């Protein structure tokens, strides 16, 4: 039993109705129920949340930072996707 960790869980908190859940950190727990209870104690001692998501860390797939260029560079030369790309006269209002 020695040196055996409980599984690691990633914790996401919705700070108030209308906002999305945001990652706040991680913790160890035996199962999802305990993960939520522990997250309540560790991450919401001062009313920081109204809703908690827990996801076992091993289920998260992350993009590889070294592939960042290949993933994100194609967006860099597509300035026409932004509203400021379009030249319009100053007298045009409400747009």
């Amino acid at each position, binding site marked *: *039993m020695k*040196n055996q*960790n*409980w599984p690691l869980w990633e914790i996401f908190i919705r700070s108030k109705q209308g906002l999305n859940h945001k990652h706040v950190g991680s913790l160890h727990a035996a*199962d999802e129920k305990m993960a939520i209870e522990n997250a309540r104690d*560790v991450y919401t*001692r001062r009313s920081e949340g109204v809703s908690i998501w827990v996801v076992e860390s091993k289920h998260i797939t992350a993009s590889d*930072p070294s592939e960042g260029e290949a993933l994100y560079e194609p967006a860099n030369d597509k300035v026409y996707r932004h509203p400021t790309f379009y030249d319009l006269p100053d007298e045009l209002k409400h747009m």
Partner: protein
Amino acid sequence: MTNIQALESRFQAKVDDEVKIEPKDWMPEKYRKTLIRQISQHAHSEIVGMLPEGNWITRAPSLRRKLGLLAKVQDEAGHGLYLYSAAETLGVERADLIEQLHNGTAKYSSIFNYPTTSWADIGSIGWLVDGAAIMNQVPLCRCSYGPYARAMVRVCKEESFHQRQGFEILLTLSKGTEAQKEMLQESVNRWWWPAMMMFGPNDADSPHTAQSMKWKIKRFTNDELRQKFVDVSVEQAKILNITLPDPDIKWNEERGHYDYGVIDWEEFWNVVKGNGPCNHERIQTRVKAHEEGAWVRAAAMAHAEKRSQRNSKKEQVA
């Protein structure tokens, strides 16, 4: 330029530009090791830090004080957990970190190896120990490693409550009976110098500072932070009507800072090496709690496994 050199110079350029380093980014092995050591020591300090204060929970002089102290000690546990989870993003296992604390290979802040012999000590810890910790921790909110910086933002928000509750305890004693005033002064006399030592060795004797500052793990040197602490504490002590146990404290017009006396580094190193008044007791207490909790951890795991097996059987039937 070799591959590693190229990666290292790209890494340093990011740090110089104040771009945070995140867990999956490439980082020099020494940066990773330095952070694991520093963050885990920090986490251990929070956990061991619960012990001197826990000593007074059952003997707090009023329900109000007991509630404040309980909440504070619970925060320390929380801080330990934020920090362990930040350390784990660097590829270490929680169980291994705890084992290192228990077998003495990992250090924690020496301040927690001093005993809390009077109620006033709870105030002194809040004022001086948490005060020194805040000086250290506020710049860590801008540390180059993202998960550590984010954990420190949470910690710092909560530390402010700790320091204020401590100062209020002392302020109450300062307006009390002669015996209470004596208790206050006696306690500050014992905690002042150990709190001064919390910033670590003088800059000249701190060989890792330069590298840590280059990597923006550290933002100020030990002596810079210590000076800030002296400057604010001297002013705060006036409100408590007490003297700080250092006859060399004197305003220095030229420097625009308070001068202060020489720290007893022999005492510092002696406590670091394990010979402080409570080193042995602190670790024994942690080990005992860990060992006596082993069956609970095992039972919770067994229960979780059984439940998940039951659930998967139910799914198969459905």
